[in-house]
């Protein structure tokens, strides 16, 4: 490996404990590339949640495409489970899902770790789809991502959550369902809002 990369063993050892550690590092570089490129993208600040998520997937897969054969050979065996790449992907997704472009009540859900975990799993499924995608420029995966991010964006920015929270709060404050009459439960509810 050192000979191929043109570095001496000491330099290698300064960065990696063992040759096996090199494999996930290639994947981590893809996430680094995403951070660098998205920061350098003109107008990125104006991107919607859908566009940010799409940008994440496209940059990630473009970076992996530079090592497509390597990814095909190593993805399932080296990084699919319990890798730093998995953590990096989850962290990047968490940043997108807790962005203030998403309504505050929705963030109570999208900031929850199982959501990040599910989306990380979806991301890995996408990578597997991309690995087996033989269409030109993996356009089938591009189209799939386009639909996926539209769907996810629709879910995470769904206005019904805000409205639902608003409705629930109104019901509780005004005791619209008469819940205060219930034993025990009633004690925990605030008094009727006299101002309304």
């Amino acid at each position, binding site marked *: 490996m050192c000979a191929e990369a043109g570095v001496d063993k000491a330099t290698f050892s300064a960065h990696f404990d063992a040759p096996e550690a090199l494999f996930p590092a290639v994947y981590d570089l893809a996430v680094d590339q995403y951070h660098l490129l998205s920061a350098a993208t003109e107008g990125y600040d104006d991107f919607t949640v859908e566009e940010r998520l799409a940008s994440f997937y496209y940059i990630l897969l473009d970076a992996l495409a530079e090592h497509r054969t390597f990814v095909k050979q190593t993805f399932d065996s080296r990084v699919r489970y319990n890798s730093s790449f998995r953590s990096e992907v989850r962290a990047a997704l968490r940043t997108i899902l807790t962005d203030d472009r998403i309504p505050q009540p929705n963030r109570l859900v999208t900031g929850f770790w199982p959501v990040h975990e599910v989306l990380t799993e979806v991301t890995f499924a996408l990578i597997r789809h991309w690995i087996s995608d033989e269409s030109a420029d993996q356009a089938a995966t*591009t189209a799939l991502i386009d639909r996926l991010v539209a769907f996810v964006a629709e879910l995470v920015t769904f206005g019904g959550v805000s409205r639902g929270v608003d409705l629930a709060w109104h019901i509780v404050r005004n005791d619209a369902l008469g819940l205060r009459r219930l034993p025990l439960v009633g004690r925990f509810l605030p008094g009727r809002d006299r101002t309304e």
Partner: protein
Amino acid sequence: MSTSDDNDDFPASKLERSKIFAKTGLKVGKNYAQYLADRVTGRGGDADERREALNTQNAEDLFREFSRLRGTALKLAQSMSMDTGMLPDEFMDVMAEAQYSVPPMNKALVRKRVRDALGQFPERLFASFEPTAMAAASLGQVHRARLPDGRDVAVKVQYPNVRETIESDLAVARSLFERLIGGGDIDAHFEEVRTRLREETDYLQEADHIDFFAEQYDQGDIVTPRAVREFTSETVLTMTYVEGRHLDAFLDDDPDQATRDHYGQLLWDFLHEQVASNQRTLHADAHPGNFLFREDGRLGVIDFGCVKTFPQDFRDDMLRLYRARIDDDPDAIEPLLHDLGILHEDLAPAVRDEIRAFFDRYGSLIVEPYRQSPFDFGDAGFRERLQDCFRAASEMREVVGSPHFIFLNKALVGLLNLLIQLRPRVDTTRSVRLIDDELERLGVAPVA
């Protein structure tokens, strides 16, 4: 290419696209259910009336939903409806409106598509690149940009995976059309549409069309874009930007009759130069969004995705039929209707008579402008006769004639639609002369 209308109800989410197919199917199903219920209960007039109402309702539902989809389905709806005559009353308005709307392809996807096609992100390739699309285009969308050498360009970016989508969309659409249209060889017609759609997904081919039309017609009063090859691939097409206003914006300024006449003449002559030319190649997407009315008095022509080259024999027979129609010569018309596949021995006598009567009516109508020059396209009588004819076509619901008619009709109906809205007086003597010259070459006597 003028700016587009912002009022857009294009399905924002891609998921909605498939939902619309399902919804359309449900609507058609619901209409059938209503029809069957009425048949059982005896409501809603006699059987023929109910059937007719059902067909009209289905056609309208189908068309309305398809026009929201654009892409494959819209193009299919446009092409098939014009050929089969499945034209709901609001057809012209719906078509014109749909063409201006901008479908959303998110900015990240646009960047990705440009990078995949041209190797770099747009900001690295162009001096400037407008991230928001300015118009819908053939199976993609168009962005304004400026080249490093300072030229203003329009960049057409194709949706991903369009070619694969075409096949599945066609399969769904075919089953829906089959319910509405009878007779004839629907497979051959679908194959013709499929071929054009496949061609439309190849932007390198469109660049060839652009060069062809620029060489043939970009002189004098016609302006066309030029392809910029070094910024073009199969899925991204860069062409020089053509200024101008669409028909609706042009008409909003209430132009005087002389100005209407001028542009009407340009539109009329442009079509006839193509029809009469032995290149046999036609800009078949003659809808209002593809013509630009310029301040300098010239006519801009854009979007060369849908270009049809006719076989020599079809084109020659069409010219002969034109001549026979203009001369109102039934003895010459009859064999040509057979040669062009409109009439054939397999037709039942009643159907054959119906088709013959319709084509006599339609044929006589479209040659009216050649018989009377200048012809006034603002004539309310002509417009009504044309609309009646389209209505009669929608009642036929038969697939008739050679598949090559699909795109000839598309161009012709598109032109008539434009002229009826523009209301010019057009001098048709030059177009008759062009046809005459070609007829002479074919050894046919010129128009009397």
